[in-house]
Each structure stands twice: as C-alpha cells, then as structure tokens.
C-alpha cells in the first residue's frame, strides 16, 4: 500500500500530462474506430500485450517472447489488411471530428425514405412489414431475424420485400438509419376483436405493437394499403404526409432520445475511464519499474554560512548516494540534477556535525533515495579575520658560482591577508611564487605574484597580490 502511495505521490506533472495525452489519443481512436472490425482487432492486441506483461512478470520467457512476436505481426497485419477501412475512417472525418467531435453512433430515422418506399410498395401491391423499435427492447420478442446492417434506402427496402427475395415474408427491423435485421418473425396477436380480413401480416404487426412500444408499418399485398400498428391500434394511413407525421412522432417519443443520450454518455464515460486506466497501467509498467538502482558520488554544497566565518575543514567533500527509479528515469538522470546541500545556518565557529537528511538532497521527480553515505558531515568553521604579514621571496635554482645575492628590497614589505582566525594564527609569512635564480640579471627589479598557502587565505581589499623585488648581486669573495 505504501509502495502504491509513494508511486502516486512521486508523479511529476509531466507524467500526468503524459498519461492524459496518450489516454486522449486512445479515446479518440475508440471514437473513430468503434463499430469497425479494426477496433475489435485492436482490443485483441491490447489483450495480447497484457498477456505479454503478465508472462514477463511470471518469468515465462518463451511465452512472453512469442506474445511479443505475435503482437508485432498483428500490428503489421492490421495496417495491411484493414488499410482501406482505416483510410475510409480517416478520410471521412474532418480535423474537428478527428480531434474533438463525438460522432453519434446512431442517426435520425430517414422518415422520408421509409415513407416513399412504403407507398411505392403499396402501389405495386408488394406486402411488407417494417418494425421501428421504441424504447423497449424488441430483441426479446422477435426471433429468427437475419442480420442485415445496411443503410436505409428506397432500393434496399424494395428489394428486401421483392417476391423472389427469400426474406420478403419476415419483418425488417430499422434502427436509426440502418436496417438491422430482415426476415424477422414477429409474435402474432391473439385478440378476438381484430377484423376477419386481417391476415397473418396484420396479426404479426398487432402482436408486436401490443407487447412493445415499437411502431410497426405494414403494407397489404391484397389491398395495396399502408397500415400502422402502435399499441393496441391498427389503422390504415391513406395520406403519405400523415404517415410521415406518425413516423416523426414515433421517432421523437419522449424519453427515447433522452435514453439514447444517456446511453451514449455512459458509453463514452466508460470508454474515457477505460482509456485512462489502461494507459496508466501501461505507463506504470513502462516507466515505473522499481528494480533499477544507481549510485552517484555527489559533491557537498554548503549553504547559509555566516558571512563572518569560513570553512576550514570538512570530514567529507562528497556524498555517496544510492538512488532508485524507473530505468527510463535513471537512464536520463544527469549528475547536475542531484544536489546535496548542507545547511550551515545554525553552525558556529569550531567543529559542527550536520546530518545529511532527505531534505538536504534535491532529486528530480520520480527518483527516490535509498541510501546515503555518510549520514552526517563535520564542518569546521573559523572566524574570518585580517592580518598584516611580511612577504618573503621564495628563491629557487642556482646563481652563477662567482655571484651572491647580496641585498633584496620588497615593495610592499607587508601585505594584509584575510582568512580563518585559527589558520592565520600559524601564518607569519606570505611567500612569493618560486623565483628562479638561473637567468637572473646581475641587478634589477622584478614583479612576483604571491603564493597564498593555505588556499583558503586571500588578499584583503586594499593590498596587492604582487610585490616588486629590487635585488643586487655582488661578486663572491674567495
């Protein structure tokens, strides 16, 4: 539980953007491809990937290898086999539909096409039975329907009910703009009060209308009339406009559209949630393996030191850090992203032991600290003072044997240096950088830089870091 909590708390804002962005892409793919065969194959690939990860987790080497191979081949097959379907999906959509729009799965019932087809069938004395479902589920009472899946058109409806068509005796189920099923067998009405002229087609229409809120349209083969069965009523509709009015009223049955929108929202919500969950799982699987460790040697940084003091000694100059994180983050880790800062705000002159805590260590998001060595550092601070000390030339090399360096005058003879009180206590002379004697002119003046030792010393403002050396050589006496 703690691990899970730490996983979520260590998420960077980039990680959240990463997950949301890819989730949206997956959600858009669902919107674009739902209802197509490609979508089902993609679901298959996702399941394969899940199996692959499980096989990896369980250490099933060959299985995971095989899954990986199958996934690669399947992805290739999708592109090759379904290229036309993918192209039609992408070409049919404009940029807004691709990136933002929520295309409706169902569309308006094409009332005018149905009306034109029905009256054409009536004119030609072709019997027909068309079911337009309401909010009730008609699948429970209709049997033996043959899936059709075609878009409603006049030609299609005429051909479905053509005498020589094997399915012309059954009913056609129209949902939205599509003919879902044909040749469907409807339940017959057992009412006694129906006119004796009603044949089987009329009784079937009345039977379904009694059991559901569907609107059933029937065309009488003998009389060439159009009738409508709804609820317990079956009545003939002479006028085409009236018929269209009935269809429109049925299509706008209160609650039907609301129920559809509710269903649509629920479906999209589930799809969005599933996308986020799936991508979060994939993201954690890829980016958050806690099996990667690395070690870094990080220099210590000291902050908030009293300006009147200086560091003269530390028990350690660097810290050894053991870090963990996903292999991706560990690989992209740069040493300058990791800092160890020792807070000296409470440190005074003398030795101070300061613990190296998690708060002292700055790590990039997603990287966690496993171990730090040492766990504390002793920092010795000294009070900064200034001191005036004499300068001495550090001569090196050899003079010619017949010469001696008789006199030396320095300008200035003294310099003011700054440094820790304890350090300066033991400093009584500042030496110059080594001055070679080998090629020295017999007499003259040279300028030499001062060599500050220890390095923590510095020249106080107002003093120079160079001295002028005036020297005189004389003949050596034998």
């Amino acid at each position, binding site marked *: 539980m703690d691990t899970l909590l730490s996983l979520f708390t260590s998420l960077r804002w980039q990680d959240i953007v990463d997950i949301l962005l890819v989730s949206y892409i997956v959600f858009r793919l669902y919107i674009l491809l739902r209802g197509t065969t490609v979508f089902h194959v993609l679901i298959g690939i996702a399941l394969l990937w899940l199996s692959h990860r499980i096989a990896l987790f369980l250490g099933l080497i060959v299985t995971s290898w095989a899954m990986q191979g199958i996934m690669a081949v399947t992805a290739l097959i999708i592109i090759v086999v379904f290229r036309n379907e993918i192209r039609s999906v992408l070409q049919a959509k404009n940029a807004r539909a691709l990136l933002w729009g929520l295309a409706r799965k169902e569309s308006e019932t094409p009332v005018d096409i149905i009306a034109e087809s029905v009256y054409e069938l009536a004119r030609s004395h072709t019997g027909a039975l068309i079911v337009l479902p309401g909010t009730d589920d008609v699948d429970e009472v209709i049997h033996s329907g043959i899936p059709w899946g075609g878009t409603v058109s006049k030609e299609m409806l005429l051909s479905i009910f053509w005498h020589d068509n094997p399915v012309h005796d059954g009913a056609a189920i129209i949902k939205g703009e599509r003919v879902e099923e044909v040749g469907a067998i409807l339940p017959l009405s057992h009412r006694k009060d129906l006119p004796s002229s009603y044949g089987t087609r009329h009784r079937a229409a009345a039977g379904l209308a009694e059991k559901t809120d569907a609107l059933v349209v029937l065309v009488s083969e003998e009389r060439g009339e159009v009738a409508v069965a709804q609820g317990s009523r079956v009545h003939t509709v002479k006028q085409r406009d009236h018929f269209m009015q009935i269809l429109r009223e049925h299509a706008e049955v209160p609650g039907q559209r609301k129920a559809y929108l509710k269903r649509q929202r629920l479906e999209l919500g589930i799809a969005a949630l599933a996308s986020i969950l799936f991508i979060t799982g994939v993201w954690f699987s890829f980016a958050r393996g806690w099996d990667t460790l690395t070690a870094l040697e990080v220099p210590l940084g000291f902050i908030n030191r009293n300006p009147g003091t200086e560091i003269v000694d530390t028990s350690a100059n660097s810290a050894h850090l053991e870090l963990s994180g996903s292999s991706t983050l560990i690989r992209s880790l740069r040493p300058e992203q990791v800092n160890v800062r020792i807070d000296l705000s409470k440190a005074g002159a003398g030795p101070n032991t300061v613990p190296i805590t998690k708060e002292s260590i700055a790590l990039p998001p997603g990287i966690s600290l496993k171990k730090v060595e040492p766990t504390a550092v002793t920092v010795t601070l000294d009070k900064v003072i200034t001191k005036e000390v*004499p300068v001495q030339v550090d001569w090196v090399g050899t003079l010619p044997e017949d010469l*001696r360096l008789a*006199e030396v005058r320095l300008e200035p003879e003294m310099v003011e240096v700054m440094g820790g009180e304890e350090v300066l206590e033991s400093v*009584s002379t500042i030496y110059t950088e080594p001055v070679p004697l080998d090629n020295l002119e017999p007499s003259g003046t040279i300028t030499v830089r001062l060599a500050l030792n220890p390095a923590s010393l510095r020249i106080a403002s107002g003093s120079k870091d160079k001295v002028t050396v005036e020297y005189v050589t004389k003949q050596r006496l034998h």
Partner: protein
Amino acid sequence: MNAKILTFFIAMLGACLLFPQQAHVQGGEKSLTLAQAAMCEEIRDNAPYNLGVVFSMANEKVCCFTMFDPVPERTFIYHSWFRRDRLITSIKLSLEPPQWATVSRIQLREADKGPWRVEITDQTGRVFRTLRFSITD
C-alpha cells in the same frame, strides 16, 4: 596676575622642549642594542664573510652573525631558525659586556631547501630583528 602665570607656563614648556634628551640620559641606563645582524657563508676574523640572502647547498652551512653594542650586563639572546614558519632550532647564545659578537650556524641538508628566517630575540621573547634568506641548489 594672569599674565605672570601664563609667562611661567610658557617658560616651563620651552625648557621641556629644549632639554628632553639630557633628562632621559641622566635618568635611565643603556639598554641592550643590536648593532649588526647578517646571514653569511662563514666567519673570518670575527666578521661575517660573503653576506647574502640566498645560500647554496654547496656551501654546506649557513651562519647568522649578530653584534650587540652596548651590552649592559651579562645576558642571553636566542637565534631561532624557522623553515617556512616551522621552528627548526632555537640556539641560546650568551652576551658579555661591554659589547659582544656571537654566531649560530646550521649544517645544510637536502631537505633544507626553501625559504628560511632567523628571529633574534632576548630572554623575554622581544624580537630584535628577523633575517630572511633562502637555501637553494
């Protein structure tokens, strides 16, 4: 009355300004004074020979010559030899009145190369002078 007091004070001030040294000499004693100090290669005829500030290892030794004049009473001084601020040796030397010259020396070794100084001090640690020199190849 005021004019007389003012004249008296001016006369006293003038007397103090005119005769201060005589008053000091008459009231104090002669103190130990360093008359000469030098680093040299060797001593010849009680005098420093080949004075300098750089000495070669080839000389094998280096000397610190000091002469005190006057020496009011029998006393001691110290020649403290430092190499790069580190005290190497402190040599106690006796002085006899009325004047006295004294010498300390060190034998040179390979490790002695570098900047040196000799502090000439009395028994109380008062520094008479610091002589600075280098030992080179």
